[in-house]
């Protein structure tokens, strides 16, 4: 095997094994509206991206929420997006059907709606 192929293979393995680095913008998403309800397994909130790991009926999803200022503007605090909380995320899912990732434009917690991207929803 050529070293270059080995490096590419290593890169592929590493990228599969890594925690998800979030995406900018919507270039990677499908255009249709998408909704996901589940329980928060873990939350990484803060710059450069806020990322929630969601358990939705046994499926693990990665959901991108806002940066701190955007979450705050929507009326969300970090405590509201903590482990064990049930949440509904409304937004766009990854265009690749095999990828369980989404970008939230609004979220619903305990029946209350919080809009992250008022221009898009």
């Amino acid at each position, binding site marked *: 095997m050529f070293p270059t192929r080995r490096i590419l293979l*290593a*890169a592929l393995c*590493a*990228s599969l094994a*890594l*925690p998800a*680095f979030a995406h*900018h913008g919507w270039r990677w998403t499908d255009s249709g509206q998408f909704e996901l309800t589940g329980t928060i397994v873990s939350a990484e909130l*803060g*710059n*450069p991206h806020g990322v929630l790991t969601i358990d939705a009926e046994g499926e693990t999803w990665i959901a991108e929420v806002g*940066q*701190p*200022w955007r979450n705050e503007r929507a009326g969300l605090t970090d405590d509201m997006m903590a482990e064990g909380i049930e949440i509904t995320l409304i937004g766009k899912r990854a265009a690749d059907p095999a990828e369980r990732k989404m970008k939230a434009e609004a979220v619903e917690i305990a029946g209350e709606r919080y809009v992250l991207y008022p221009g898009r929803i």
Partner: protein
Amino acid sequence: MDGAGAIWTALESLPMAEALRVSRWTYPLVNAGHILGIAMLVGAVLPMDVAVLRGRDPQVRMLRPWAVAGFALALVCGSLLFTVQATDYAASFWFRLKMALLAVALVNAALHLGGRGGPVTAAVSLAVWPAVLLGGRMIAYG
């Protein structure tokens, strides 16, 4: 790797890292500073390398302070950005590749500045600095 893991966690809990993590303007500002540093560094290094390879007047050496200043700016801003998500970056394949390439680039630059400079160090520099840049950009797409 418990020892290293503890270092990354300690970096992440520095007051500076905590402040950057929740800031609205400071984080993008530091991010922009990192890009400006890279622009100055690579923008100065490439013309110097090409001049050496073409055997041209070493007048391009006047760009050297720009490269050094750019590197310093990129290093300071990049280190700050690292502390925000140290554990994730330390585990990132692309980040590790970038650091390895950066080490090669710095050893090469030291050889060059140490008087062993010539077409070989110039060619290595011309290839490796853009590779460091690419490695860095790929961290966000890993």
